[in-house]
């Protein structure tokens, strides 16, 4: 069986997010080879009932967006359909600027975001991880958030690159002054 199918089996069995590093380790190959195989898998899932969602360095299998309405009808669980206006602001910041510290979230919003951040954490829409220097926490989108937006990676948001670039421009313009 080819690598992409083997990876599919592993992801299916795990039923949760798996890091590319762990996949590379498990199959005793390098991360670049995993990337290629994941690309193949993504392609082979087109028009199928499943989709491959990528969040940072992790991947996970989900149902395809086309099956959304169907499963919404079947599920008995209460689905989270709405986020408050402030929640949307914080989600948007984390999607486009994440990973981002709470300090920076507050700075851009001009107001303390403790309650909202905690609420989004509890709902599983964002997660807190240690920053690379291990000295502070940063926030990033979760698989759950991507899944609720029906996208398989954050770059699938409309105008993702443009928004990124715009914000960069503002930030560097400030630094120049």
């Amino acid at each position, binding site marked *: 069986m080819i690598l992409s199918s083997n990876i599919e089996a592993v992801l*299916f069995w795990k*039923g*949760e997010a798996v890091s590319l590093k762990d996949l590379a380790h498990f199959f005793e190959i390098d991360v670049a080879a995993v990337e290629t195989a994941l690309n193949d898998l993504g392609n082979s899932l087109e028009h199928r009932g499943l*989709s491959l*969602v990528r969040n940072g360095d992790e991947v*996970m*299998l*989900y*149902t*395809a*967006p086309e*099956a*959304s309405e169907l*499963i*919404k009808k079947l*599920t008995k669980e209460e*689905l*989270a*359909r*709405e*986020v*408050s*206006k*402030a*929640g*949307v*602001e914080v*989600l*948007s910041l984390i*999607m*486009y*600027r994440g990973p981002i510290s709470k300090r920076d979230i507050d700075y*851009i*919003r*001009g*107001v*303390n975001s*403790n*309650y*909202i951040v*905690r*609420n989004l954490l509890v709902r599983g829409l964002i997660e807190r991880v240690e920053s690379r220097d291990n000295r502070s926490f940063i926030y990033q989108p979760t698989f*759950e958030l*991507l*899944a*609720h*937006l*029906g*996208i*398989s990676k954050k770059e699938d*948001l409309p*105008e993702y690159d443009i*928004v990124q670039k*715009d*914000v960069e421009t*503002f*930030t560097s*313009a*400030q630094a120049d*002054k």
Partner: protein
Amino acid sequence: MAFEITTEQFQGPFDLLLDLIEKRKFFINEISLAKVTDDFISYIQTQENFPMGESASFILVAATLLLIKSKSLLPHLELTTEEQGDMKSLETRLAIYQRIREAGKVIEEKFGKTILFAPAERKFSETVFSPGSITSQHIFESVKKIIAQIPKVEQLPKVVVQKVISLEEMIERLTIRVEKSLKMSFRDFAGHDKSEKIHVIVGFLAMLELVKRGIIQAEQKGSFDEIEIESPEIGVPRYT
């Protein structure tokens, strides 16, 4: 379990400020910020029941707006590096905030419409008891840690409190500086059509005073110096 605090319909000072700017179809720059300063402050004054944390952030922004407005009326007004930094960064933050808020519309629109579903709890995986090396002690230490991390009833961050307190001083200092600058301006404007400009400045000082009173009434209830400036003949903004 409700965590959201809302201040009227605004999610924070930038949300309000941006609405004021966009309503007038302005771009974000010092000129437009100076123009919406009065509206911004009068909004704060109509809000009586601000939660403490929220009002602090609104007042912080008001302080920077006042600096921007002072500077636009009195180019001679000297500003510290920090103040200049605050003024510049307000523009930048607002610009980023505007873009992010705009981008957020897509998120709001998409959220919950098309949902990708994760697999339900697998019933086919056989459970094999595998506790690793967990002991009661681990369990105990872990629960203690959770309890220690439970957020206590939210306290207003100390930094913000300090800044709010210094806002009162800031307005006093600003008033003194404006007065000083005004004396200088008398010389500068000699021979020019000074009456008009002076009226603007006097009106502005009166506005500062009103602002100060308003903020103190709303938040501080402390003592404040009386600076009696009256300028009935020009359009002093009224906040009461």
